[in-house]
């Protein structure tokens, strides 16, 4: 598709959607959201890009191979379970820590966030891979 309206709109929309997907990812633990929907939103942004421009450009704009993104996501999600093992607790026991970030205040960080982050990448990788494969054919 070669529409200047869609292309221009995509330039504005894509950063917005990506930022929003991160917001959804971060608020996920206690409110609706999380890695899965956040990932789907981000994948939607890249799909929009693929429709407006072309799949090859989308692949290039991702910088990393999609397979690698999936693998990294899996490893991040797995690594969220491992700290608990090191402290002698069962796998995936949530470990929380309060971090003071200058300018924001106290941030409640924990391994479940890491898990969500992994899911986020896996969902992006798989969804975009499926969309691109369909668009390219």
């Amino acid at each position, binding site marked *: 598709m070669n529409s200047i309206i869609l292309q221009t709109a995509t330039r504005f929309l894509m950063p917005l959607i990506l930022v929003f997907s991160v917001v959804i990812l971060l608020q996920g633990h206690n409110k609706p959201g999380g890695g899965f929907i956040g990932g789907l939103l981000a994948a939607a942004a890249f799909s929009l890009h693929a429709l407006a421009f072309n799949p090859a450009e989308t692949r290039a704009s991702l910088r990393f191979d999609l397979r690698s993104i999936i*693998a990294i996501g899996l490893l991040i999600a797995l690594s969220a379970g491992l700290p608990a093992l090191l402290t002698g607790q*069962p796998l995936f026991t*949530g470990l929380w820590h309060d971090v003071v970030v200058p300018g924001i205040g106290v941030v409640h960080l924990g391994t479940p966030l890491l898990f969500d982050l992994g899911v986020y990448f896996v969902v992006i990788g798989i969804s975009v891979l499926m969309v691109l494969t369909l668009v390219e054919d």
Partner: protein
Amino acid sequence: MSTLAVLPVILPLAAGAASVLLWKSLRVQRVVGVAATLALVIVSLLLFREVNREGIIVVHMGSWPSPIGISFVVDLFGSIMVVLAAITGAATAIYSVRGIDKRRQSFLYFPLLHILLMGVCGAFLTGDIFNLYVWFEVLLMSSFVLLALGNERDQLEGAIKYVTINLMSSALFLTAIGILYGTFGTLDMADLSRKIAATQNTGIVTTLSMLFLIAFGIKAAIFPLFFWLPASYHTPPFAVSAIFAGLLTKVGVYAIIRVFTLLFPIDPGFTRPLMLFLAAMTMLTGVLGAASQMEFRRVLSFHIISQIGYMLLGLALATPLALAGSVFYIMHHIIVKANLFFIAGLAERIRGTSDLKAIGPVSVYARSPLVAILFFIPAMSLAGIPPLSGFFAKLVLVRAGLEIGEWAIIAVALVVSILTLYSMTKIWAEAFWKGPARREDEAESDNKDAVPPSMLLPVATLAAITVAVGLFAGPIFDIASRAAAQLLDKEGYVRAVLGDEAMQEEESP
């Protein structure tokens, strides 16, 4: 201790993810594939030793106690199954290095193999029925891809049948879980076990047990739900067939045994006659189907079905001895069956075909006596010739049947055993023995260097294990009978998972 129980799942996942990350280099993927599966063997043996020494190991995932959270419950039977899965996985990984072509390997063959193993191990370890469903899905997803990988016409035809029937089975399984949860309000198998035992509503319990029997029966390929198996197992590469034949139907059998010991114990009035009938029909149809086939892997596929009948037989009799027989049978069967498929692959590489009639004129024996001997061991074991593992497995089941006077089923089992011998001799005679032992002019399709050492090694190791199981049948039977005793001890399982208070609560409501 709790780490050891989750490692059989973490290890394949990490190896799978790492191999995807290293998708560019096939060499690294192969090394990771072999190293990770060998590590899995070691981990599984350590886990088995731990369970053997300490009793049932329970890990509450994320520290959420049962029945709120999901627990891994590792008893002897589960840990034995993990050991068998790991051994088959390692053999497959080593065999695949040369046995799977580069094109398939470059389409993420090794990562899929790891994920398949993760699903299988997870299914053997979990103590939550919905989690069991999830592990089933994990292993089915990767098996779908492995089956279709390569896009050959036959493969896709087989894959369509396999996928359709397995999705139906999954839907039934999920339905049964839904009803179970609606009725009892829990998905933890230990919690379910005591709630089902206490309920007055026997109608719904019987309905549920039949739903589970059908759902798992499809996956385990019991009569009359087996037809997808011989339609699909001969189509993928030999290494894939081997791991499917060794492990996947046995996950179904494992689930049937788990559910019909822990949740719905065999009822002598209703489930026993039904299961005995199913076991007899499974054995007979399988072995008769095999007798009519002339393709190497099709013969073997039908034999998987008839062997499933034996495992079901032990469960149906439900005495400690019979159940021990089932466990022993599974141990023997996984090793032998995977090995026979590997050898079918070797024979095909040597002679360029796996049609028994076409192999005939120049025997495999003439080309490679070693491969012929390596076939002879598992084949005779499968047929139940002493002193190999299959003989003892059948002996225990027959004795268990005689003890409680189920004459008819024992007669069937023995007839099927003879017919199994017939099929194995047919393969031996047609493919390995027929034709002149030496031949001056080489047949054109022959390839003398067809069998690299990396493919012979797993075959020889599995054959050695078969012989060892036969030679050390005493100690191994001892382990099997303790696993069976643990399976029949429902209260021990519930106490291990929920703690002592739960049992007292039950007694004084």
